[in-house]
């Protein structure tokens, strides 16, 4: 009986300690619980109105809005007078390394508003780890349902090439059937989906479980030896250290996605990192308008402003504060020069969207 009492007291103390610690971790912004939930149609989506704090090479304090994307809550239906730009991409677009007001979308809005004299909204639909297929599905099912004038799809080589195509039982899958693209949402029948749904209420409310999950990801990614053994950790063999070759060919499915997106002239591909010339040529052949952000970022680096360097944490990673500002300004210029947004400069040619086809002369080609 005494032993039982002791055991009970110890168990209660452990639960109490963990609960208090969890509360502290959340309220002090040290660790946000899982900020996404698995939507049966969309896959993982941000929980509306969820406060989020993130630390990496920079830091982010913000929230998902009531519609489940980042930034101010702009409703799906447009007021008419405003201009809307959808930003679709991976963690670079998501921008969880800077405060919301330092995101390139805000600079894009400001610059275009000044140029057009109209209200411009940039809606951030970025999601970490997204590739072109995820972007397409997310655009069709969610982002594209918001009225918009332009949709910018930010891609790098890894998003276009097969190396990063992740087939997950938690995401809807884009497939090619004959000549048509279809979105298979059968993931919600998978075991993994049901497992995640079962643990979702706990995971989305517990900071400690998020820490455990992060640790699990680190261990399964092979990072444990480095963390624990430090200098004594076995170094990877020289051959493994070699960089993976840049992909050269576009998979058929991705080509079909680009072709599909190219049908709507409001869709623009923003290439955010160097592509192999053959891959670039393939992408260009889709006919989708392209903004060459990679060349712009290279030019920044050549001027001594490394867009990936974080002076405070001395790390290289996502775009830094200065890069966000420059990218916002650059995109505003590009959208004006290719007349995607009607400004005073191109006032003579209002709404040229339906006629526009990218001819490769307006932005820097590489």
């Amino acid at each position: 009986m005494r032993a039982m009492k002791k055991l009970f007291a110890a168990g209660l103390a452990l639960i109490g300690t963990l609960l208090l610690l969890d509360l502290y971790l959340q309220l002090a912004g040290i660790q946000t619980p899982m900020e996404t939930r698995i939507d049966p149609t969309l896959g993982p989506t941000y929980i509306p109105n969820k406060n989020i704090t993130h630390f990496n090479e920079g830091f982010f304090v913000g929230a998902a809005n009531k519609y489940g994307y980042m930034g101010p809550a702009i409703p799906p239906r447009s007021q008419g007078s405003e201009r809307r730009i959808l930003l679709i991409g991976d963690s670079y677009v998501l921008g969880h390394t800077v405060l919301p007001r330092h995101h390139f979308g805000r600079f894009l809005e400001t610059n275009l508003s000044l140029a057009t004299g109209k209200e411009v909204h940039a809606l951030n639909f970025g999601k970490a780890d997204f590739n072109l297929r995820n972007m397409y599905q997310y655009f069709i099912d969610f982002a594209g349902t918001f009225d918009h004038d332009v949709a910018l799809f930010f891609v790098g080589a890894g998003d276009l090439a097969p190396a990063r195509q992740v087939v997950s039982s938690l995401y809807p899958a884009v497939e090619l059937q004959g000549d048509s693209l279809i979105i298979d949402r059968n993931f919600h029948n998978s075991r993994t989906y049901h497992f995640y749904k079962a643990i979702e209420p706990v995971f989305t409310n517990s900071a400690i479980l998020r820490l455990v999950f992060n640790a699990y990801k680190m261990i399964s990614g092979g990072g444990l030896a480095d963390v624990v053994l430090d200098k004594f950790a076995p170094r990877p063999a020289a051959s493994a250290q070699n960089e993976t070759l840049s992909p050269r060919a576009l998979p058929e499915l991705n080509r079909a996605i680009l072709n599909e997106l190219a049908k709507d002239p409001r869709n623009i591909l923003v290439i955010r990192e160097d592509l192999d010339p053959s891959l670039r040529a393939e992408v260009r052949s889709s006919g989708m308008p392209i903004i060459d952000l990679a060349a712009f970022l290279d030019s920044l680096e050549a001027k001594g402003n490394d867009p990936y360097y974080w002076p405070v944490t001395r790390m290289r990673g996502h775009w830094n504060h200065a890069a966000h500002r420059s990218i916002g300004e650059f995109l505003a210029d590009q959208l004006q020069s290719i007349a995607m947004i009607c400004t005073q400069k191109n006032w003579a040619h209002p709404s040229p969207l339906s006629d526009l086809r990218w001819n490769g002369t307006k932005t820097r080609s590489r």
Partner: protein
Amino acid sequence: MNSLLGSGSMLFNSFIFFLFLAVVLSIYRLVRGQRARVLFLLVASYFFYGYWDWRFTILLAISTTTDFLVGRGLGRTDEKKGRKRLMLLSCVVNLGILGVFKYFDFFISSAQAGLAALGLNVESFHLRIILPVGISFYTFKTLSYTIDVYRRRLDPTHSFPDYALFVSFFPNLVAGPIERARNLLPQIADLKAATPQQVKEGLVLITMGLFKKVLIGDAAARIVNNIFGQPELYRSPELLAGLILFSIQIYADFSGYSNIARGIAKLFGVELMRNFEQPYLSRSFSEFWRRWHISLSTWIWDYIFNPLMSALLRRVGRWKLSSVQLEMRIVYPCAAIITMLLCGLWHGAGITYIVWGALHGVFLTVERLAIYKNKAISMRGRIRGMRSLGRFVIRLTSTQFLILFAWLIFRAKDLNQVWYFLGQFVHWQGSDLTGRFAVIVLFFGLMILILDIAEYVTRSEVYLLRLRPAVTATICVGIFLVVCFYMMTTKPLPFVYFQF
């Protein structure tokens, strides 16, 4: 400095240190015999220090050997001149090493700037050498030994391994507590296995220290470093949050480190002095300095302030002023400001540290002479009634407000940054994230306050041991596990005081 203390360093909040500690403790338990234990701990301590950079151990060995020999020499001679020479030799070697490695570039830059202001351009001559970790701490430790032997307050040790271990004992080697030879040498001369009570206390101290360091200090540092690194990106409420979080960070970081150091020492059967006693509950600056970094403030009191006061009083005494009180009014400010200036300089080779020290000197002087009229402030105030509570709150908040202001100078990159912060506080610019930052600051503050109040009320750092053993154990396990999970996914940050 940061790159040096990042990967490849033996931080208390790293898994490699946990492994090191587990191996050293296991072997230590097996080692029999006093001499063997001392030698084993000496080797382990040099390995610990050399893990950063083996070249650092050379400086440590030079400092150790010099002071051991000086101590022996002082023990052998009664001749006043000879003793003075030996004392001078110790000061020259120790302060010389410190001067070259820590202050040379700063003084050269300052001299260059001064000459440039006079229109003289001198070619730059900087050594650009790495600052060895913890050099200020072990230099003060060895100096205290020599001074105590010189003042005949301590007999010199005849065992070189004992003395070498006193200097290099790894739990307090790199960031204190700056232990005195009087306390540590006798314990080293009679090393014993830890008692069960010491093991319990040690484990609780380590756990709570890790919690403070990792989940309060490091977690706050992630915001603080960003805000102080690029303040121009942030608005007034965010800058204020950054400043308050820094005051929490530096306390959690250093007191957490001291707890871990004391806890580890206990596991080897060694008792180190307390370094912090709830400094943010202080109602005066003198009380603050009795509670903050106690090993440094008592060192400064013993070896700088008191001798300086005596010397100045002797000098002022010759002026034959009307009263001793008048003499005190002249001598105390001089002694306090000079001492605190040196205290600031000890913290770092930079103008901000010197200004921070001087400011504390002014605070202490004003408080002593104008407010409390030489009355000592008790360490534990009793609150009787509303008036007493009101006085307590006013004293506490005004003291802490000025301490917070001083932390701004301490943390700022330079004085321009201090002006920038102050400008932003005067020309207040709101932020849409004010509420979020306020909540973050509130909960960091609440956590550190709860821990401090628990210590204050129980008058014990190991208050968890007052609970049932099973409850204490599960609380510690719970905290330790969460700390480990956090450490797995976050790069460990060095202790703030390592750079000093």
